[in-house]
């Protein structure tokens, strides 16, 4: 069974890129364009990793993160942003990883792979 990744980003191009790249990497990918949509979907579906943008119009990624932690505390979240300043925000510590957006998607894929493996090891225990 494929691992499921949820992409949360208001930029259509980013969603398309991540969806294509991660699908090719063997993941089942679902993408939403807002924090509110992400909160809504995780109430009904289970994901192995969530890739969350921070700067979004209706609900910021940081705010969405606190909801996600309440709804599905076991699902790892990667904060993925254009800014480097949020790394200093203590609320971003709730995330499992913090990555700056880049055209080089290898670091993102590597991080997803690590978190999926960790989740699988935990569920086996």
């Amino acid at each position, binding site marked *: 069974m494929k691992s499921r990744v949820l992409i949360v980003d208001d930029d259509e191009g980013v969603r398309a890129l991540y969806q294509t790249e991660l699908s090719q990497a063997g993941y089942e990918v679902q993408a939403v364009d807002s924090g509110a949509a992400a909160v809504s979907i995780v109430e009904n579906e289970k994901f192995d990793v969530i890739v969350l943008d921070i700067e979004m119009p209706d609900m910021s990624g940081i705010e969405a993160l606190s909801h996600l932690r309440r709804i599905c505390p076991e699902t790892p979240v990667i904060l993925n942003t254009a*800014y480097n300043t949020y790394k200093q925000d203590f609320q971003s510590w709730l995330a499992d990883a913090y990555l700056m957006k880049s055209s080089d998607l290898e670091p993102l894929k590597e991080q997803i792979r690590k978190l999926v493996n960790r989740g699988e090891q935990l569920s086996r225990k």
Partner: protein
Amino acid sequence: METIATEKEKSFIPKYLTGALNDLGIGAFALDQNGQISGINRAGREILGLDGSDESAGTNLEHIHQNLAVNLTEARSKLSNGHTHAMVYGVEYDDNHGRPQCLDICCLRADDDGTSEQIICFLRDLRRSHRVSDDELHLRQELKILSDVAAALSSSTELVQLLKVILTGATAAQGLGFNRAFLFLHDERNNTLVGHMAVGPRSAEEAGDIWSNLDSMRLSLEELLDNNQRKAGQLSDGLNELVDDFRIRIEDDSAIGRICREGSWLNLTIDSSVDPVTASVARHLGADAMALVPMVSKGHLMGLLVADNQITRRPISDEAVELLQVLANQAAVAMERARLYETRNQKRIELEKTNRLLAETQDQIIRIEKMSVIGELTSAIAHELRNPLTVVGGFANMILKSGTAGDNQEYLNIIATEIRRAESVLNQVLDFSRASKGENRPIDFSQLVQRSLELLRGRMSGKETPVFASMTDEPLIVYGNYEQLLHAVYQFLKLTAEDLVPPGEAEIRTERREGRALLLIRILCTDETRDKVRKTLERIFSQNRTSQRLTILVAGETIRYHGGNIGLASGEDCPPSLYMELPLMKESDR
């Protein structure tokens, strides 16, 4: 009563008239055409201060007081020319002994036939004619002294000048005439009187020299006060050594303590009944008797004036001490005024300094605001650019990896490379943007450079950084935003290590130069590569900012916002060099 006229008197005034004029205290004398006194009666000699012999006839006008001589010369000239038959003047002046004189003068031609140019002059001593008593005269003299001293005191707000006036007034023959005077100022914190200045001779021999010299100068008190005020330094070096830093503890049970508390003077002869503190002061000053006068203004003790007649041994009268007290009170008020003036001056200087600091702070706030706006702006731009770069670059990479690029592979490679470069610049801009949020604080410039070097070595992971550093041990404290400056210095060093040095080496050092912290980078290249390095540098630090590299532009602006500068060090024969300078923080602002 003498009524017999001298031979000379006989020659120009009838005998009966000479006696009557002497009795009335009216001086009479004749002036010849050469301006010489050809005959004078006794009253005239007394008024003019000439000696009592007949030899005073023949005295030239130059030998009598200048104020009087001017009038007599003018009268002789006008009468001789026939302009008038009589001239009358009123003259006031201080004589050679500093005594005020007040005369009426009447000059007449001695004949009308034109055969002689002799002028007869009559002098009336108004003090005598008004029957001014000795007491009144004495009072007048005292008032004159006080008035002269008051005028001198009001002419200055400098403490040293005021102290000179007080001491001169107390010791001048034309003033109160004490032999020596010592001035002690009140040190409130330690409740002591501290010796400050003194005037007077150290010995009888010195006194002879000083006093005869002063006497020959024939100065009025006003002139003497003016002279001494202008004189640089102390009035009397030797005697000053006696009081320099000499401290008198103000103790309640001592005579000095009592008069300072009560504000009243003391005319003291030193004997066994005198308390130990006061006796030790007398012993130190070498005085057998002394006048002690506290200087008080509005109930506030300013100091103590001590005067004596140790050289002449003349007894000190209570009247003289009383007058000294009046003088001391005037001086105390002047000193208080000088103190207030000094305080006001200090406040003005402080206010000016505060205003200057305020202006600098305002300037700095504007700069910080500007930097903050730039920070926010760059952050927003970075965000807007980041997503398209990620998407374009990401898809280019994806196609490249898929192997489906075909003929477009070369172009896709260029797109991917340029996107990576753009992302790198974006990261630097974001670093700067993050840095602009920091607070300003004092920074050790050498440590900042050292930290930037460590960062550079860390990021160049594994590669050898061909940069040799030597930091000055002297603390170079600058003021600013640490993160911003670190970013700027880092970019500066990164440029050196990556673009300028290979295949050579660079030598960097920090130093203090003319109130600024300086970072100097010398590129140690070969003769062959020197021109190339120079050209690269000239391009990077081009005056045309649009062609400058973004990181250097931002670093340069950061340094300039902090009041510093970056650029190329000049010198054709020297190795190509870069410099960065920042203003050092003032000690007083730390």
